[in-house]
């Protein structure tokens, strides 16, 4: 991906001042089919400093996506409080959100999709087009403005989604398994691109993933969730700037990876709804 030097530097630096994210005693339950309540997030206390890159990891159904939607203001907590900076979150372009399945509007062009995030603001047409063009250049899609999503590869679609999330110059970027539906090579390239973008714009990032490797490559801090609660909070002290290839050579990386993976593995094996439930004995034997 090439970053055009013609993009004014002001755009890169104009990210609004960083805002941290604070969860205080946050719980959220949902009503399921038979009327019962299942809790998705339980008593979460979490403080994320501004400009930090935090990965949220844990088995399926551990509440990580719910936590992300609470941070976006898409969901209201049942109890507790969430603050972005010093105000409760409100959905809008100031908080960027990237979803796993891209969620591009199929009947809109690439430019139309990216511009969608700003259409609620009272921007005039020229200003909007200018911002869209600059954002597309930044994610390396300058020549694709007129294409429709169906004409793009998976990696390009996710870059459009990223451009849409970034165009509001968000101080907080929320990402819900954004690269999970990409093939392995595209995923690695996208990870590097994301790091490069983050190093320039420096929003606070909350990044949900299933992948231990992805979490360790990208994040300053990895939060392990299970059963709706925060189970572990791990610092990742790998040097930056990181790129996918060299980060993995560090011995620290191997140690953290081993630790996180055994943690997640235990969570999955202890989950009665998992296909691997009850495999402790067999797995231990293999390990021993």
């Amino acid at each position, binding site marked *: 991906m090439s970053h055009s030097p013609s993009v004014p530097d002001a755009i890169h630096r104009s990210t609004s001042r960083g805002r941290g994210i604070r969860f205080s005693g946050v719980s959220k339950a949902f009503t399921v089919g038979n009327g019962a309540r299942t809790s998705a997030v339980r008593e979460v206390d979490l403080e994320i400093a501004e400009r930090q890159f935090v990965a949220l990891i844990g088995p399926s159904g551990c509440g990580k996506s719910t936590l992300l939607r609470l941070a976006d203001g898409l969901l209201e907590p049942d109890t507790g409080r969430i603050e972005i900076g010093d105000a409760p979150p409100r959905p809008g372009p100031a908080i960027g959100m990237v*979803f796993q399945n891209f969620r591009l509007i199929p009947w809109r062009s690439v430019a139309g999709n990216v511009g969608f995030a700003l259409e609620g603001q009272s921007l005039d047409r020229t200003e909007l087009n200018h911002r869209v063009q600059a954002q597309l250049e930044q994610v390396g899609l300058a020549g694709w403005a007129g294409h429709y999503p169906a004409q*793009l590869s998976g990696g390009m679609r996710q870059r459009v989604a990223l451009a849409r999330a970034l165009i509001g110059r968000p101080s907080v970027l929320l990402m819900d398994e954004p690269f999970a539906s990409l093939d392995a090579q595209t995923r690695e390239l996208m990870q590097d691109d994301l790091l490069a973008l983050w190093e320039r714009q420096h929003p606070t990032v909350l990044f949900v993933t299933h992948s231990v490797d992805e979490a360790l490559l990208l994040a300053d801090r990895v939060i392990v969730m299970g059963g709706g609660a925060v189970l572990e909070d791990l610092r990742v002290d790998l040097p930056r700037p990181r790129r996918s290839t060299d980060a993995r050579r560090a011995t620290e990386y191997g140690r953290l990876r081993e630790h996180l993976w055994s943690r997640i593995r235990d969570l999955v094996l202890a989950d009665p709804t998992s296909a691997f439930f009850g495999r402790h004995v067999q797995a231990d034997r293999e390990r021993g």
Partner: protein
Amino acid sequence: MARRSEHASASPWLIAAMRLGVLALLMLLWAVAADNVSRNIIPSPLETFEAARRLWADGRLPTALGASLVTYLGGFALAVAFALPLGIVMGAFGLLGRTIEIYVYALAATPRVAFIPLIILTLGLGIEAKLFVVFLGAVMPIIINTYAGVRQADPDLVEMARSAGASRSRIFRAIVLPGAVPYVLAGLRIGATIGLINTVVAELYTAVTGLGGLLALYGNTFRMAEYFVIVLTLAAIGVVVTEVLRLLELRLTRWSN
């Protein structure tokens, strides 16, 4: 990485040529049938062509065609004007939709011919009654499809739009309505087909006019060549209208490949 479907990649010229080939085959079958079945029942293609020229020259076919088109297109336009807003409102306001959908489905499942005596008693035998018969046939599928299209808005896209800070009305305009377009077009196609059927029904059951009237006249008097001309004219109307709607659909869903 444009993905193209199998038949989109076949050359349009090849498809046109193949279609002409099938047409030639059908004409051949028709000619063979005309020769082998008693002449009074199946006219030859040539006799039919002659009959068409006669009917066109003496003005009967143009008059009947005009009358039928007025009934058909007028009734269909009324149906669209009524069904689109109703379907959209039903989809937008869930409670209203759930309240009246059952009556719409019930009416859609009732054979509309059953209403003709009532329609004649209230609207008479003239153009009003005919327009209403066509309207009644075309309106249901358009309401039902529009309603379904609006209700089945992609929840992922709606959530994305909410996350971008879009208001409810902007979500409706930018996500829900455009997402319903393919459903609406399918409804229009079904409505157009039923509308054409009901045009003939109306012309047979109310004042006997138009193509339906000629159909009855030539059918009852065994003038089979003329009768065939009317059948083929009706088929041609069906093809033209369906094709126009198909082109509209292609135009409105260009983004999908």
